[in-house]
């Protein structure tokens, strides 16, 4: 990228909102040569009646949006039942992920459970082990609604050794952000009466992997939820219908789906998903365990490899940021690979441990861009570069890769996953 262009860019950015300052760069409004047939000719949708109100009793997206779907990378895993599909982040806006687009990670396929046959048990070091039906669960006082992100600890895991997958759906799509309806787990634990010796809980799913994770009792009694609804409707089967655990800010694997049991104990259970998996192997051969918390992270979703720039002139850069430590306080964006930064506009609701949406309105004159975003949370944590992360961890960690992503945008508008010095 030649120096003058960079200066040019900086000038535009320094002027703030692209409009006024960019006037000199903005081409004069295009003039049409011939009338647009879409305007001057009658269209069939204007002339003829469409479908009745209940043609689709459960509404689906427009047929023109059929590319906006979860996708998988078949060769990542040996089996589709223990595999992952990715959220199409590049095609979404706002902060809420639609239920049907929330990424899916199973370890034993999707359990389909009749809620009438679901039971939720609290046992272990409690005064009184209890069993609840779904009806009991929903009668529990203290119902809450909370927006939280859920990120798989392996999100961006393929990128530790360098840029690999060309699209933010695949590099960052193991995340979703929805509003949960449920009751604090604490209510159920109190009902059973936790022994003063209790220090940990084990959450267990009813699926064919009987997924289990140990969670410190302190977290269980703090903000964990037992949830049955997402975005206002029942959980989707692939998200744990009829009941899942919500563990705000902590890695997705702990949010046990098809939740059937919570056991209280005085030490962790060292289950497969907290020893063989979800531990972070460092360069010196040692491994961190119990790395539950998801650090602050962000990504530019537009433009990105699956969402190239189409026109010069005014454009909107968009992205998402989140932190398991709290609320996103600021997101900076660089268009020159991290040399210069400007603070993006965080727009819309911004809850703790939830995704925030950010925008930068900018003017593109066709030059090469190297886009990056850098999230900061209210704990003061600043999203590191990938090289900074590797300095501490090496590149064998698989999990917890929250390094800054770079998209190279070429003069033709196409974008590519790259790493920069």
């Amino acid at each position, binding site marked *: 990228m030649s120096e003058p262009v960079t200066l040019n860019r900086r000038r535009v950015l320094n002027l703030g909102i692209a409009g006024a300052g960019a006037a000199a760069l903005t081409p004069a409004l295009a003039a049409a040569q011939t009338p647009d047939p879409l305007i001057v000719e009658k269209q069939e949708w204007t002339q003829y009646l469409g479908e009745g109100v209940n043609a689709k009793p459960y509404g689906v997206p427009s047929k023109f949006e059929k590319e906006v779907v979860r996708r998988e990378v078949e060769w*990542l895993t040996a089996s589709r039942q223990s595999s992952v599909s990715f959220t199409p982040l590049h095609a979404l806006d706002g902060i809420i992920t639609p239920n049907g687009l929330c990424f899916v990670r199973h*370890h034993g396929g999707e359990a389909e459970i009749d809620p009438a046959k679901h039971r939720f048990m*609290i046992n272990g070091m409690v005064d009184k082990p209890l*069993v609840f039906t779904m009806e009991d669960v929903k009668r529990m006082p203290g119902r809450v609604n909370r927006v939280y992100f859920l990120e798989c600890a392996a999100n961006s895991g393929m990128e530790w050794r360098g840029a690999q997958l060309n699209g933010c759906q695949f590099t960052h799509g193991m995340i979703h952000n929805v509003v949960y309806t449920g009751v604090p787990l604490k209510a159920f634990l109190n009902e059973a009466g936790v022994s003063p010796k209790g220090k940990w809980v084990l959450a267990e799913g009813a699926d064919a992997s009987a997924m289990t994770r140990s969670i410190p009792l302190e977290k269980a009694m703090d903000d964990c939820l037992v949830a049955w609804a997402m975005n206002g409707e029942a959980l989707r089967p692939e998200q744990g219908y009829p009941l899942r655990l919500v563990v705000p800010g902590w890695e997705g694997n702990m949010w046990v789906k098809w939740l059937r049991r919570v056991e209280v104990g005085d030490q962790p259970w060292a289950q497969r998903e907290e020893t*063989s998996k979800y531990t972070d192997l460092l360069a010196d051969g040692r*491994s*961190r365990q119990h790395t539950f918390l998801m650090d602050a992270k962000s990504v530019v979703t537009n433009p990105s490899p699956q969402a190239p720039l189409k026109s010069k002139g005014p454009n909107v850069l968009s992205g998402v940021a989140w932190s398991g430590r709290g609320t996103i306080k600021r997101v900076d964006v660089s268009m020159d690979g991290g040399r210069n930064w400007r603070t993006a506009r965080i727009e819309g609701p911004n809850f703790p441990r939830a995704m925030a949406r950010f925008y930068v309105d900018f003017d593109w004159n066709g030059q090469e861009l190297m886009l990056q975003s850098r999230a900061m949370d209210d704990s003061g944590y600043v999203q590191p570069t990938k090289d900074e992360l590797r300095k501490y961890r090496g590149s064998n960690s698989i999990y917890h890769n929250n390094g800054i992503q770079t998209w190279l945008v070429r003069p033709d508008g196409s974008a590519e996953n790259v790493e920069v010095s």
Partner: protein
Amino acid sequence: MSKSAKAIAIVALTALMPVPASAADKVGLGRVALPEEIKAWDIDVRPDGVGLPDGKGSVSDGEALFQTKCSSCHGEFGEGAGRWPVLAGGQGSLKSDRPEKTIGSFWPYTSTVYDYIHRAMPFGEAQSLSPDETYALTAYLMNLNDLVPSDFVLSKENFPKNLPNEKNFYDDDRETTEKAFWKKDPCMANCKERVEITNHARILDVTPDDQKDDKDQKPSAGVE
């Protein structure tokens, strides 16, 4: 498990006593879980052996079981068929560019082997193995990882706690070791002299949409 059973017995006794004041805080939803119900679901085993059922199994019984129930995916010697998980080997590889994390090279505790096999394997027919079969399979996997001799018989009584790599695990310390990531004022202008592209995704060409002719190209790290 036994602890819960004891808890039940205590509950049965206390049920006859006067209602304690704190019971007033209870909503009274749900019902008491029966010991049989707890036994059916509470199958977890901890590193200290809590939760291990009575029973035993030999390496040789484990080998026979493994060849019929497990080797189609995990390979005859736990080496993993195709992309299915590798269960043995990898010792000494953890610092290399391609670490192989197996029971012998990576896992911290033996109990996890028992617990996981009993809970989730064979894949597609979970919780079909008896305690004796699970002990035998655990013994065979320990033998494949050079941890016990081939005439070894594993039981609740001689169940070992730690695996060789246990000493290399430690609790999350990001808040101290990665303190540098909490910065007051991140740089905003002229943060570096030059920016060079060090690596392109396209070179690896593993993007799903372009994968037609490189289906067998593995990414350098998988989803786990």
